[in-house]
C-alpha cells in the first residue's frame, strides 16, 4: 500500500479505511500485561463479570493502538516521521473481546512550515467504530509527515 506524502494529504478529504480488525483476547490480555496494565477489568474475567460491564473490557490503549495501526498502514506508514501530538482523545463507548473495529480519517488541516523543512504538520480527526457502527474512539491529532520534495 502506497503511503501519502505531505502534499498528497488534502484538508477536507475523508478516508474510510478498508482494513478492519477483530480485537481478540490475545490482543487485550497480551498488550495489557506487556504494558503493566494489570487492571482487573482487562485481565480478570471473574472480576469483570461482576463489574458494570458484565464481561472483560478491552484496554483503551489497545483500541487506540489498533485504530492508529489501521490509519498508519493505509495512509502514512512510510511517510510518517514518528513525531506527533494529540489534542484530544475520547472513548465514548466500550470495546469487548470479539468486536471488529474499523477506522476513518478526516484531514482537518495542514501546515508545511519552512520550505526547507523535511516534514509538514497534518491535522487529522481519526475515528474508530465497532461492527454496529458505534463510535468507540475519536482523536484529534497532528502528525509530522515527510514532504515529497
Amino acid at each position, binding site marked *: 500500500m502506497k503511503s501519502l506524502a505531505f502534499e498528497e494529504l488534502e484538508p477536507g478529504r475523508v478516508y474510510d479505511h478498508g482494513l478492519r480488525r477483530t480485537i481478540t483476547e490475545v490482543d487485550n490480555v497480551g498488550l495489557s500485561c506487556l504494558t503493566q496494565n494489570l*487492571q482487573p477489568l482487562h485481565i480478570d474475567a471473574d472480576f469483570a463479570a461482576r463489574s458494570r*460491564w458484565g464481561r472483560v473490557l478491552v484496554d483503551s490503549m489497545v483500541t487506540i493502538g489498533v485504530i492508529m495501526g489501521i490509519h498508519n498502514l493505509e495512509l502514512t506508514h*512510510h511517510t510518517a516521521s514518528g513525531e506527533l501530538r494529540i489534542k484530544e482523545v475520547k472513548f465514548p463507548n466500550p470495546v469487548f473481546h470479539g468486536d471488529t473495529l474499523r477506522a476513518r480519517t478526516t484531514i482537518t488541516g495542514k501546515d508545511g512550515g519552512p520550505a526547507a523543512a523535511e516534514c509538514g504538520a497534518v491535522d487529522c480527526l481519526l475515528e474508530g467504530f465497532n461492527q454496529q457502527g458505534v463510535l468507540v474512539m475519536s482523536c484529534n491529532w497532528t502528525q509530522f509527515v515527510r514532504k515529497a520534495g
Partner: protein
Amino acid sequence: MAGLFYEELEVGRTYEHSVRRTITEFDNVLYCGLTMCLSPAYLDHEAAAKSKWKKPLVNPFLVLSNVIGMHVIEMTAGTTHGNLGMTDLEFPVPVHPGDTLRSRTTIRSKRPSKSQKGSGIVIFLHEGVNQRGEVVMKCDRAALMIMRDGEGRQ
C-alpha cells in the same frame, strides 16, 4: 485491590510510581506487530539509521501504554469504571529501545459525576520519565473512579 477510591485521591498530590521498565526491542516489535504498524521509523534499523535520531524510535503508542500502565497497579486497579479520554498528549523527547521509563501521576482535579451515582470524574496528569530524568510523554486523562460505597465496588 490496590487501587485508590475516588475519596482517597488527593487533588494536587503527585504519586511517583515504583514500577520501572526498560523498553526493549522485543516490546517495540511485538507491539507494532499486534497493532499492524509497519512504520520503518520503528521497525527498520537501516532506514532509522538515516533519520535524524540515527536509530529506531519506540512506537509512541507503546510509550503511552506503558506510562499509563505503570500507574494502574498503584492507583486504579479495581477502583475505576474505565478511561474516558485524554487531552494535550505530547512526546517531547523520543524513546529508543533500551531506555528505562518510570511514571508519575498528579491529581489535577476531581468532581462527583452528575449522571453516574457513586462515582466521580478525576483528571490525572500522567508523565513518563526516562533514565536521564527527561519527560518523554505527558497527558491529562479523565477517568471515572468508583467511590468507597459506590456501585461496582468489589
